[in-house]
């Protein structure tokens, strides 16, 4: 019963304090929303880019264009040799005519027709081996073995594309984390100041509480809950905003970043939990610091 009375007392006083100090509380809540919107945007962009990266990772394959007129026996020997390399999942032979068919198909997919000029022209594509990997990190080793092979004309990999995207993600991640960190610090100071103003405006009340024998918990927790309330309201509003824009964002995540539909379905829940935890955390830490420094000084 005593604990319930304490909780009831703290919650009621926090609620009263939030509205008594309404302008500052709402300003602090607005900065929490700003921070959480930035955080949500960063999480969405990074999740999208990570999905894209995973997609490319899953597609990382090596194409070895073969020298012209390579005998079938040599091709089979090369195929077996490549299949035996570590990190190789499978090896598929693509003949020049099959390569041409693929090229034509890729043109048709974008609504165009492949025009090679003279229909009787003798243009052919390279025969090739398409090697899929079990481990994207094996790309370098397999590629170097192939490029040194006499039967291989040229080796094509998606490693450069992968490395570029990884670089972009790392830059965005670093800049985003620094940005969210700076806004987070601003929010923390805002909450510290909001609660400090609340504490100073109730200095007489706190002094009376101390004199009549209120414990530190009774003095401290209403203010901490008031800070948590700022974070909570900010988190709930941000989650509502993200949920409202999620419907148009979700198909884009699937289409642009190749994010699997199942992952994108769970993503809103995940991001809501993160926003909720960060909102509460910032509110609690800010108000804790503020009240702690005041009570320590007042002892």
């Amino acid at each position, binding site marked *: 019963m005593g604990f319930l009375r304490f909780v009831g007392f703290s919650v009621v006083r926090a609620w009263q304090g939030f509205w008594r100090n309404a302008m500052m509380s709402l300003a602090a809540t607005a900065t929490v929303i700003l921070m959480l919107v930035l955080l949500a945007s960063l999480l969405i962009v990074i999740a999208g880019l990570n999905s894209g990266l995973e997609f490319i990772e899953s597609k990382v394959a090596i194409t070895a264009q073969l020298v012209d007129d390579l005998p079938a026996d040599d091709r089979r020997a090369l195929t077996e040799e490549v299949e035996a390399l570590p990190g190789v999942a499978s090896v598929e032979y693509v003949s020049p005519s099959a390569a041409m068919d693929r090229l034509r198909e890729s043109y048709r997919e974008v609504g165009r027709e492949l025009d090679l000029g003279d229909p009787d022209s003798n243009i052919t594509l390279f025969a090739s081996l398409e090697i899929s990997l079990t481990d994207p990190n094996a790309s370098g080793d397999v590629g170097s073995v192939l490029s040194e092979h006499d039967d291989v004309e040229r080796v094509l990999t998606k490693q450069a594309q992968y490395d570029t995207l990884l670089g972009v993600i790392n830059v965005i991640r670093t800049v985003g984390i620094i940005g969210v960190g700076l806004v987070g610090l601003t929010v923390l100071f805002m909450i510290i100041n909001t609660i400090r103003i609340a504490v100073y405006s109730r200095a007489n009340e706190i002094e009376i509480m101390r004199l009549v*024998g209120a414990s530190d918990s009774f003095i401290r927790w209403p203010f901490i809950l008031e800070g948590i309330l700022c974070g909570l309201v900010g988190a709930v509003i941000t989650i509502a905003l993200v949920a409202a824009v999620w419907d148009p964002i979700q198909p884009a995540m699937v289409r642009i970043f190749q994010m699997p539909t199942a992952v994108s379905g769970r993503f809103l829940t995940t991001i809501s939990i993160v926003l909720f935890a960060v909102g509460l955390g910032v509110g609690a830490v800010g108000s804790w610091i503020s009240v702690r420094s005041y009570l320590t000084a007042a002892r």
Partner: protein
Amino acid sequence: MTSLLRRRARTENADAPVISMVDVGMTYPNGKVALADVNVEIGRGDFVFLVGPSGAGKSTFIRLLIREQLPTTGQVQVAGRDLLHMRHGQVPGLRRRIGIVFQDFRLLPNKTVWENVAFALDVTGTAGTTTRQRVPQLLNLVGLHEHAHHLPTQLSGGEQQRTAIARALVHDPAILIADEPTGNLDPVTSWEIIQLLIQINELGTTVLMATHNQEIVNAMRRRVLALEGGHLVRDESAAAYEREY
């Protein structure tokens, strides 16, 4: 009403002094000596005046008793508790054994008389049923039951001080410390407050009253502790405000 103030938990030794200071000294970091070599014992149920000019050390004396400050030397015991060796978490318990009222009343202006008194119970986790019993009893004791729903701004100075006294008594303290309780009041109202303090004292509560009011001290003829320059220069029973010999 008598039972209200007599049913306090008797955890302390009944014969032991309720306040004890031994060789107490208090020097502030700037070197100012606020108290030096103070030795005092105040028994349970005493009524004691603490007098002295401004800067004599009265406020420091009171701050040490409620453990707002710790002495730089000596020992202080209040209501059976050693204040020097008390953990921080035990201080609220000590302060519930001490009621304190001030010259400026220190009421919360946005709360009614009832709420001001109940506040002291709410912030110490007292059950609502206890609060609903205790507050009217205390308001009857101080004669404010008809003003229970008035705000402090709607009360006279004397009524505000009565409210502060009711609030100081909510935890049924062993000691009531009154720091210049009549300083802001006219002579008639001052006497009414003194009569109330006497009544509370007669119900068993030790009263320590810091004052500059010579008329009251001379008329009451109670024990007087006089401080000057941080030294206890006089400790006399049935005494006047100033030395008479």
